[in-house]
């Protein structure tokens, strides 16, 4: 589920804006154009912050609320950027019964964000995921491409400290 305002300041470039406007121009006459426009926008920016949704609203005349409603309905859309280090905690069945819920909650507390969000410095983002195919190592989390298994809450500080 998407969350509220991104804590990371918006830093869109002129090139991104032009790419978005071009995409909107190509799509906006079509019926049901909002979904493909949002997908394109997320391709361009990596997420759908308020500034991007406002641009889409201004260009298409679709009310902001309608855009926000769609963006928060589909789990493929995110209102928050991903961090330099993307943490995914597996909440699949095996990991969950082995306590990955506690790992996830502890990370939220340590990073001061909830799932789906990114820390204000842009360093870590946190998401829950389903099975990563390493059930034997449960509970498992990934940071970018690195897999950490047989985790306990006590391991987390040491692991996070490795990422500067």
């Amino acid at each position, binding site marked *: *589920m*998407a969350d*509220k*305002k991104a804590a990371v300041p918006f830093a869109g470039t002129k090139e991104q804006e032009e790419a978005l406007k071009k995409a909107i121009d190509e799509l906006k006459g079509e019926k049901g154009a909002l979904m493909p426009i949002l997908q394109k926008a997320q391709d361009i920016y990596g997420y759908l912050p*308020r500034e991007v*949704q406002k641009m889409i*609203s*201004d260009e298409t005349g679709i*009310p*902001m*609320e*309608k*855009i*926000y*409603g769609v963006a*928060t*309905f*589909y*789990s493929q859309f995110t209102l928050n950027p991903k961090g330099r280090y993307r943490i995914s905690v597996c909440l699949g069945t095996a990991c969950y019964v082995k306590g990955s819920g506690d790992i996830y909650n502890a990370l939220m507390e340590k990073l001061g964000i909830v799932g789906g969000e990114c820390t204000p410095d842009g360093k870590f983002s946190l998401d829950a995921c389903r099975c990563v195919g390493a059930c034997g190592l449960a509970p498992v989390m990934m940071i970018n491409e690195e897999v950490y298994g047989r985790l306990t809450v006590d391991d987390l500080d040491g692991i996070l400290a490795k990422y500067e």
Partner: protein
Amino acid sequence: MENVNLKINGLNVTAPAGSTILEAAHGAGIRIPTLCWLKEINEIGACRMCVVEVKGAKGLVAACVYPVAEGMEVRTNTKRLLDARKRTLELLLSTHDKKCLSCVRSGHCELQELCQELGVEDEDHFAGERNHYEPDTSAVHMIRDNNKCILCRRCSAVCEKVQSVGVIGPNNRGFATFIGSAFEMGLGDTSCVGCGQCIAACPTGALYEKDNTDDVLAAIADESKHVVVQTAPAVRVALGEEFGYPMGTDVEGKMAAALRRIGFDKVFDTDFSADLTIMEEAHEFLDRVQNGGVLPMMTSCSPGWIKYCEHYYPDQLAHLSSCKSPQQMFGAITKTYYAEKMGIPPEDIVCVSVMPCTAKKFELQRDDQYAAGVPDVDISITTRELARLIRKVGINFRSLPDEGFDDPLGESTGAGVIFGATGGVMEAALRTAVEKLTGKELEKPEFTEVRGTDGIKEATYNVAGMDVKVAVASGLGNAKIIMDKVRAGEADYHFIEIMCCPGGCVNGGGQPRVHADVRNFEDVKAIRAKALYDNDAAKTIRKSHENPAIRKVYEEYLGEPGSERAHQILHTTYVKRTIN
């Protein structure tokens, strides 16, 4: 249109092809309960209250969206269906704030009625996880309490489809879904125009106006204050519904009597200032026509429309008449002319208005509405709040005698009273403008081309050798169509009347709530408007410029329409706003 034959509950029924089971059943006198369905506005088949059995169909189908077919066999009231509906209600109640005793909707809540009807015995039948929301009190005129929301989407459908505003809608998904604005903005921070059509559409107590009845009682209790009340034209033809009168009953006399018994020092009438508005607006129109002013000129009586224009057409504000609305003109003239005449300092006068409108609560707080250095109008309550006030102070409305309004601000003409219906302001203005232009008396005062409940009406009148082209729109979706033409330079109208609510003020967001069962099948706005036109037809004076009290105000105080003093007191300015 082709008809199809079907059986509903064993009865042979004929219905037009393409109609829904629900419409066919209604035609045959069979009621199927609904919650989310608003005809032509919200047809999403989501709430499952209207489920019926169709022979051969898989599972239960939603009658509101399922089309009839030849030979179809439908059952609407089997035990299985009644159980299914009851279960749906129990599920809705599992995350509903069931504080009915203190709920503004108690007694006329569509959800509550259905629970009674279908025999829900245990409101906590499914006790599970609950959502809790902080009510949104950020808007000047209303409150959204999502704890009472059943997610039927009637409000957001009206906002987007009828009013072309779309500042509310469903956010998130599944159990986390709630109705709100983009990025959890409070309604007060959005480009909401305050029309209150969402309130009128809501089946429960989730949406309601901010209640100012206690402020009224406090003002009346304060002996140092002279409290006057004004009532908008549309209020008198709807208030009766709250006391069991049939829709379209004009209760003007009883309303005046009730206001006097509530304790107002003077019971006046906004119809008076509607006449005053016509004097100024007709003058402004003639001035624009004769001196090359910005045309088309657009009416400025409807605060929802004004705010809409400021948010969505900020580049077109020069078209708006600079006239204050009748509510504000009334307050302004009360605190200047009347205050002087009575020898009461304006700061000791409290001006209360009773309006069919929620946007009026916002309007009275606007800048440039302080003719005497104090707010023109102090408190604005809706028709619903007046009914509440009448009940609160223990008045038996039905047994009241018919009384009149007080002098001098209670005297009005038929032109003033029709302000409450779409086309009414235009007709009233034409009655005066045409006579001014031609210098001759009209053969008949009616301009029937601009009457009726169509969303957009056009007419051309030849006046003193000039073709005057007028347009009338009600409902902001229709206003948008006109405004896009004006913006594109494709409109050759001279004068446009726009009212924010569909059908005009008679159907305003502050009027008595109409149950969806009625609203879906009756033309509420036409029924109420007819009462206004009947009231006009029964009047001996039907043109604003013939109102003796109006003449006197100009003679004694304002001079001529459009005079410097009139401008100071009766005209206003607008601001550019953004879309949020």
